[in-house]
């Protein structure tokens, strides 16, 4: 580029070459108007690994059911304990490191999990450009289309889609503004907002631009389950986003994902709760959005555009972090690794604790499957399992909310410990969350920890004044 172009570009950002409509799915067409973004978008095929993230390109010999020549590395091979952890569930057959957006459709299609269990059409929401297909299936009604596709089999649904996530899934074709297109998120975030007292929340109407820079990602990078026989794709947020609220939600519905093959426990699988965990961290609290780190601004000539090569920020530290943190790249990498190593070590401890309990229940059950102690211990396994998996399945290895990630693991180890106590016949509460509350919530200075803000204010009023910062007569 020459200096002339630099000054030109500054004035004239985009050229409208083609007209985009609300049915233009193909990103190549959008790319005519926005070639820079399109070029970067296509780079998500790159496979580069970091200590815990990115992905490693593994040669794969094509088979009848899986024609891929390259896959990401198997996480089961790397840590075989995961096979036991998910025994009896499709995940114990195949679970890989996730890779760039370009692969989402083929990876979903060809995972061995498809062979292990027939998967529902609900799966497709997060692995393809579904905006136009949903509209079509619902005759112009997005939610109706969503519900209809949820009921289908995966293979039926698969026929309706062509592209991985595409421009239209995040952008309004007229204004290019961000928008949420996933009914799962619209409904989920509405329920969550309702739990905080915000009525009738409409994400595309009520969210700020900065919030949208997180919400477009939160459309898919979230915990979910298929509700009921209709396989309604549901985000379990009506009690809140913290692991405890989500677990309480599952406890209240009695939902289980499968029955554990070793212990017989009614267990849950946590899946990529990036949005949920991130929301407990200091970056979310400081108003930083997913796009700030995963799609940072980059200078293209005189323009600043969002880097549509969505990837690990560790492969792009300068732009992703140094705008805000004026320290060296190496130092930033080490800060992340310090957090991740600590999380990883504690995750490993938690998995061992969980599996010890799982096997102990397995043994007790073989001895006497009607023993009520076994049923109680299974409840603790269920909790330990969900808490451990919440961090294991989250993809930042703790970075998105470092203290919270390790707190969750500490609680997981404690559930495992209590499960063993239950097996030994000791008196433990019937529900793990009650045990947690009984241990954790000792009040201090008149203010029980872990209270919601409003409840805390209430207590404060009762004890008189603000016990947070209260003066007492000095000794002078």
């Amino acid at each position, binding site marked *: 580029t020459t*200096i002339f172009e*630099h000054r030109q570009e*500054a004035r004239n950002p985009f050229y409208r070459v083609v007209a985009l409509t609300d049915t233009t799915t193909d990103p190549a067409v959008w790319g005519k108007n926005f070639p820079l973004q399109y070029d970067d978008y296509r780079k998500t095929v790159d496979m580069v690994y970091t200590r815990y993230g990115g992905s490693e390109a593994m040669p794969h010999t094509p088979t009848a059911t899986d024609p891929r020549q390259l896959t990401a590395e198997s996480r089961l091979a790397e840590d075989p304990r995961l096979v036991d952890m998910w025994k009896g569930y499709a995940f114990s057959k195949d679970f890989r490191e996730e890779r760039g957006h370009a692969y989402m459709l083929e990876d979903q299609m060809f995972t061995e999990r498809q062979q292990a269990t027939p998967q529902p059409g609900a799966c497709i929401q997060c692995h393809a450009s579904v905006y136009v297909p949903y509209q079509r299936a619902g005759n112009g009604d997005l939610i109706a289309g969503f519900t209809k596709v949820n009921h289908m089999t995966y293979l039926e649904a698969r026929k309706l889609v062509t592209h991985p996530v595409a421009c239209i899934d995040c952008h309004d074709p007229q204004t290019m503004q961000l928008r949420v297109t996933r009914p799962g998120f619209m409904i989920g975030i509405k329920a969550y907002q309702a739990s905080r007292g915000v009525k009738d929340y409409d994400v595309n109407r009520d969210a700020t631009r900065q919030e949208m820079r997180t919400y477009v990602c939160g459309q898919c990078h979230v915990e979910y389950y298929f509700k009921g026989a209709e396989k309604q794709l549901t985000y379990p947020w009506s009690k809140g986003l913290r692991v405890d609220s989500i677990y309480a939600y599952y406890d209240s519905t009695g939902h289980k994902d499968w029955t554990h093959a070793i212990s017989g426990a009614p267990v849950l699988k946590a899946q990529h709760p990036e949005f949920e965990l991130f929301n407990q961290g200091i970056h979310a609290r400081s108003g930083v959005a997913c796009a700030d780190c995963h799609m940072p601004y*980059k*200078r293209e000539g*005189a323009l600043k555009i969002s880097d549509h090569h969505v990837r690990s920020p560790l492969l792009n530290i*300068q*732009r992703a972090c*140094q705008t805000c943190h*004026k320290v060296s790249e190496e130092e930033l990498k080490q800060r992340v690794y310090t957090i991740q190593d600590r999380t990883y070590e504690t995750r490993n401890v938690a998995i061992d604790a969980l599996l010890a309990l799982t096997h102990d229940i397995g043994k007790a059950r073989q001895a006497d499957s009607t023993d009520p102690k076994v049923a109680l211990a299974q409840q603790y396994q269920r909790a330990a399992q969900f808490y451990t998996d919440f961090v294991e399945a989250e993809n930042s290895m703790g970075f998105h909310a470092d203290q919270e990630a390790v707190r969750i693991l500490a609680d997981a180890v404690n559930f495992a410990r209590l499960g063993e106590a239950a097996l030994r016949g000791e008196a433990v509460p019937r529900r793990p969350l009650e045990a947690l509350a009984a241990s954790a919530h000792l009040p201090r200075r008149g203010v029980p920890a872990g209270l919601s803000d409003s409840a805390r204010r209430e207590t404060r009023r009762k004890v008189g004044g603000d016990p947070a910062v209260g003066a007492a007569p000095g000794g002078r």
Partner: protein
Amino acid sequence: MQGTRIAIVVVVLIGLAFGIGAYTFIYAKGASYLTTDPAACANCHVMQEHFDAWQKSSHRNVATCSDCHMPHDLVGKYTEKATNGFLHSLAFTTGRFPDPIQIRPVNRAVTEAQCRHCHATITEAIEWGTVGADRHEAGPAAHRAAGARPQVHDGIIEGDRLSCIRCHTYVGHWVR
């Protein structure tokens, strides 16, 4: 060897300055560096963000870009301006510079000195015993022997002096 290389670099630099360099300098408004008008800095769109942020900063009415980024003595000032003016013009023209832009250690040290220049009085209490005396003279404690390990952090000798910017990052412009 080293000498030859430097000589070549010098020749090339001179050539650039008088050839394409002159074009660059003029076109990219490198001469803006010779003024103290903040708007002149913003002549380069890559400085725009800093300019905008400066306009919202506590120093907007009291310190211009050059007050913080140029040494206050005249020779130093114009040497600095010429060097930065040329290097930045060149960078702007080639498009080869870090994104986001990062202050170089040498320029950071200039800024640190500028804070002290304006705020000599108020910082006396925290700078005394260190003013004019870095560790090679007196050391953090008088009884510290020579041979102590001087440590350099981002261009500041972290011996006796505290870095102002470490705490007051926001004063000029905050782009975060």
